[in-house]
């Protein structure tokens, strides 16, 4: 089984040359192209984060000037949110695996899929141009009236970048939704769909309904900054809190765009490596939809101290507690899936254990911020920073790497070293906790966010945090090393290295351009491990 010869014709070697990549309509190649651009953005975001962490090792702002620090954390936010977290799982793993998992030749609109990638790159280019010209210093939230009247950094350029990149997310959501509705293989009913596909469907719903609102909000911001249209300008009677309402109407559901696909990956990987169907399949599937729909009702928990009325704060707090329930249901179902399974400790599962550990803390600290009494004290402090990093880095990025490791053999036809991947998971888990757990304590102590210089008594915890960040950086670099190494020296993976169920494991790896020699027929439920012996391809 350890031959290094790869199947003759696959989507990677069927055509060669740059043009074959830049003009491809193959969803698998587009997924790889997204991986390249997102990795660059992740690397950039990481550099900005390193700058922030180095600055915060000392109470006085002596590493960089205040203005540079503000631009560092803003660019870290913009690069990570809009160009890493939102596209990562849907655009890379979703693009690659969705058609394979439902037995289709490609997504519904291949040309528009390529167009989405180009729009994403153009948006990224505008944001890069803004970074090169000096960056933007308004925070990734662009709150007015600072961003429109008082900031003299490239707010407009970054706004255009984010505006354009938003359409890439919209078109990907549209493409996936139509693909799941219309392109399923015969016999693939809704309740035989893998849970990753359910998660992608819920994510597309959020992308379709949320992203246009931030597009128009950034558009209004650009109108106000460039042409003087005073929509949010308090001097004309405009309301800065209205900007916050419109911004968070998208940006909270956006965090569900970031976390739902990784949740789908976790369901896949846990089922595969416990050799068992997921516990409560329909509950996990419907909780994805519930998160997507409820996600649109809770945005004003970001505004509890921003000037909304006490009664509406109460309503949003109640709804924010309600939206936490489906996530809890998912976590309990994953744990129950492990019960009486045959748990095969392989690298993707290590990343899933990391995900569960960190997402648990991230999700539960959300309850602190949803409760009104605490949020007045905790809002805009490092408690919030720690909470969303636990969800985003602990949840979304860990989930992304779990998926990347799980489908890497299918993408490249090669296996990576299991020991290295497990070590990387451990490094990232330890480094992450050391970086962000002290920030919960700093948060309750009252250290505000986005501070270039802080009071002395917070220093020790910040030094701990910066130390953790360096371990985290090592962990991430290690991933890049052994994955790239596996491209050249990795042994051939064969069609089903993890012995998993699911249509994507029935075709060769890497798959042929049209995915399946002939369209597969599906006649059993999603994770039927126990009844059938698994043929080792």
């Amino acid at each position: 089984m350890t031959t290094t010869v790869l199947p003759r014709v696959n989507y990677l070697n069927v055509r060669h040359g740059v043009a074959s990549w830049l003009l491809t309509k193959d969803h698998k190649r587009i997924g790889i192209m997204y991986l390249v651009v997102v990795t660059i953005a992740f690397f950039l975001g990481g550099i900005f984060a390193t700058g922030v962490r180095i600055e915060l090792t000392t109470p006085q702002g002596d590493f960089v000037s205040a203005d540079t620090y503000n631009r560092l954390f803003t660019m870290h936010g913009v690069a990570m949110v809009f160009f890493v977290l939102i596209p990562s799982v849907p655009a890379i793993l979703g693009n690659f695996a969705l058609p394979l998992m439902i037995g289709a030749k490609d997504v519904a609109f291949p040309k528009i899929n390529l167009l989405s990638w180009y729009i994403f790159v153009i948006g990224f280019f505008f944001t890069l141009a803004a970074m090169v010209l000096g960056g933007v210093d308004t925070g990734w939230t662009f709150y007015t009236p600072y961003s429109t009247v008082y900031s003299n950094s490239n707010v407009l350029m970054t706004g255009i970048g984010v505006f354009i990149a938003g359409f890439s997310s919209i078109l990907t959501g549209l493409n996936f939704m139509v693909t799941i509705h219309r392109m399923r293989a015969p016999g693939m009913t809704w309740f035989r769909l893998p849970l990753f596909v359910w998660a992608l469907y819920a994510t597309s719903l959020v992308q379709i309904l949320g992203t246009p609102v931030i597009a128009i909000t950034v558009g209004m911001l650009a109108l106000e900054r460039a042409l003087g249209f005073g929509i949010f300008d308090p001097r004309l009677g405009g309301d800065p809190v209205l900007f916050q309402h419109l911004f968070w109407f998208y940006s909270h559901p956006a965090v569900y765009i970031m976390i739902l696909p990784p949740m789908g990956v976790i369901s896949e990987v846990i089922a595969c490596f416990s050799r068992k169907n997921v516990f409560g399949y329909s509950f996990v599937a419907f909780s994805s939809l519930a998160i997507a729909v409820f996600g649109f009702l809770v945005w004003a928990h970001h505004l509890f101290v921003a000037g909304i009325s006490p009664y509406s704060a109460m309503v949003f707090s109640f709804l924010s507690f309600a939206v936490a329930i489906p996530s809890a249901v998912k976590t309990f179902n994953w744990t129950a899936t492990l019960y009486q399974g045959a748990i095969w400790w392989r690298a993707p599962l290590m990343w899933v254990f990391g995900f569960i550990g960190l997402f648990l803390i991230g999700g539960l600290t959300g309850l602190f911020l949803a409760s009104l009494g605490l949020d007045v004290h905790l809002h805009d402090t490092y408690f919030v920073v720690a909470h969303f990093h636990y969800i985003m880095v602990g949840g979304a990025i860990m989930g992304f790497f779990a998926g990347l490791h799980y489908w890497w053999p299918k993408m490249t036809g090669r296996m990576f070293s299991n020991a290295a991947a497990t070590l990387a998971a451990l490094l990232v888990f330890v480094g992450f906790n050391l970086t962000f757990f002290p920030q919960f304590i700093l948060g309750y102590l009252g250290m505000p966010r986005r501070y270039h210089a802080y009071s002395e008594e917070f220093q020790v915890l910040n030094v701990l945090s910066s130390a953790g960040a360096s371990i985290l950086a090592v962990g991430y670099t290690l991933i890049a090393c052994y994955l790239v190494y596996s491209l050249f020296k990795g042994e051939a993976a064969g069609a089903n290295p993890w012995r998993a169920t699911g249509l994507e494991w029935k075709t060769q790896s890497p798959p042929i351009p049209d995915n399946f020699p002939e369209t597969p027929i599906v006649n059993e439920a999603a994770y039927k491990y126990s009844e059938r012996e698994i043929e080792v391809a």
Partner: protein
Amino acid sequence: MPDGVAAHADPHGPASATGFGAAGHHPALQHHFQTLAQQQEAATLGMWIFLVTEVMFFGGLLMAYLLYRVWYPAAWSEGSLELDIRLGAFNTVVLIASSLTMALGVRAAQTGAQKWTVRWLLITMALGFTFLVVKFFEYREKYLLHHIPGPNFEFEGPHAGQVELFLSLYFGLTGLHALHMVVGFSLLAVITWMAHRRRFSPEWYTPVELSGLYWHFVDIVWIFLFPLLYLVDRARQFG
């Protein structure tokens, strides 16, 4: 045949004369679909989802309009009286008529009346163009009166600031709508050219149907914009 016309291209698959796929298939069938019906259903579903994003896109601006109307009723009635109701009403009639001709054009494509398809589409484009011309004159009149929000905005009366807010939203909403009209106009131009080249048939007329859906959506937006912007407090005009 240009693929997508504007940034948010419409998901109608382009049909080139050569056609993909094995012989015997309809030339417009793309390789990754099994049947033409599946492709058409996918395209129409894609367009409907795209229209959902457009509804939410205008939703943000309408939210700002709604809030400031609740907060500043006086400025809203003053601002609304600045707009010329005759041009607004005329534009509404023109756009609803263009919706009719568009629907008849789609019907002609469905029934294979190729000549009539081209004629109805041309009439729709003409009506769309009329709308844009009327809009141009309205904007020019605002420009001459210095009513375009921004540094040289002049408006006497106590509510100058809030009236500037109203006019900012007026230009935001109608400007965005006009932009969608321009995109729709160029889309129709492409479709009319394809109809002229006899590309459609009763089995395959998806591009005409999709551009029809898009055009009707733009008409619906104006159906809401007209009362919201022009008819805020007309009764005041007569005291």
